């Protein structure tokens, strides 16, 4: 490995591909969606012209939206039904009461009211919040966007005034998601002093030991404990094998009793 500092792989390839698809489709959806929300802004008209006109804007927006929908479905199906190593309600990314405590302790630590940084596991409370934001965002966008995309069919079941309410929800949630990503997510990965100019974890999936010790000490401890136990088990098995081999060698020299040689399995 070229850079040994980044020794801990937190994210595998499938996960990083999902994240890459996610941010690509979100960026495209935002750039093509904002002109529709603020059409009288000069930047909106410039953007639409640069991308090739209103029909292109619509096509790109729908393509990005459908990508997000498919990505969401794949994500849920995989982690709930296909990857069964952990039942989905026990997955580490789900919010627990401990995360609320961590959040409060984190604020207290930042304000100097507390000496110790909260000890967190595989996902910190703000990472889980990011994740919930994505789940909520994609759910709202899909549920409000699909009826608008398939408007003719939707209007057979719901009146036009409900479609206008869906538009309000869609565009308001888009603003919330955009601002949250632009400000809070960008803080955590770009302009936090520990991360400036950027972290490459989304690319190679790795983090340093300092990161693990500060933000995921419980996960690190659990992992190291498992490592130690595995090593211990291997050592004992190796000793047992060596002992058995030594006994077998000793027995082959002296006259062997009628008992069967001990199994080395």
């Amino acid at each position, binding site marked *: 490995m*070229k850079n040994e500092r980044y020794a801990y792989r937190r994210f595998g390839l499938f996960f990083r591909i999902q994240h890459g698809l996610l941010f690509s489709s979100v960026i495209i959806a935002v750039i093509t969606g904002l002109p529709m929300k603020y059409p009288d802004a000069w930047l909106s008209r410039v953007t639409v012209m640069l991308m090739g006109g209103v029909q292109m804007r619509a096509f790109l927006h729908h393509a990005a939206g459908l990508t997000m929908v498919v990505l969401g479905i794949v994500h849920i199906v995989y982690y709930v039904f296909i990857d069964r190593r952990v039942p989905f309600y026990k997955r580490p990314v789900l919010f627990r009461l401990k995360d609320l405590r961590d959040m409060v302790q984190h604020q207290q630590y930042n304000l100097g009211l507390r000496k110790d940084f909260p000890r967190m596991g595989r996902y910190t409370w703000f990472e889980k919040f990011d994740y919930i934001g994505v789940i909520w965002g994609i759910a709202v966008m899909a549920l409000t966007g699909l009826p608008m995309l398939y408007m003719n069919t939707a209007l057979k079941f719901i009146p036009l005034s409900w479609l206008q309410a869906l538009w309000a929800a869609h565009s308001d949630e888009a603003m919330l998601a955009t*601002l949250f990503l632009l400000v809070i997510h*960008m*803080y955590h990965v770009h*302009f936090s002093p*520990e991360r400036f*100019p950027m972290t490459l974890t989304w690319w190679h999936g790795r983090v340093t030991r300092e990161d693990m010790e500060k933000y995921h000490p419980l996960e690190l401890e659990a992992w190291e404990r498992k490592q130690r136990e595995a090593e211990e088990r291997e050592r004992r098995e190796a000793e047992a094998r060596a002992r058995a081999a030594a006994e077998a060698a000793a027995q082959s020299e002296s006259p062997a009793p009628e008992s069967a040689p001990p199994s080395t399995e």
Partner: protein
Amino acid sequence: MGSFQQWLDRTNARYGGIGAVITATICLAVLVYALLVILGDFW
């Protein structure tokens, strides 16, 4: 991954503090402006 990551680490060691402050200020300004637009829109 190697050399770009090392460049990032070097830049962080040298400019991490000031870079963070500048970009955070810009982003907070964007946030405040956006919130004012949203609130003013709604009022």
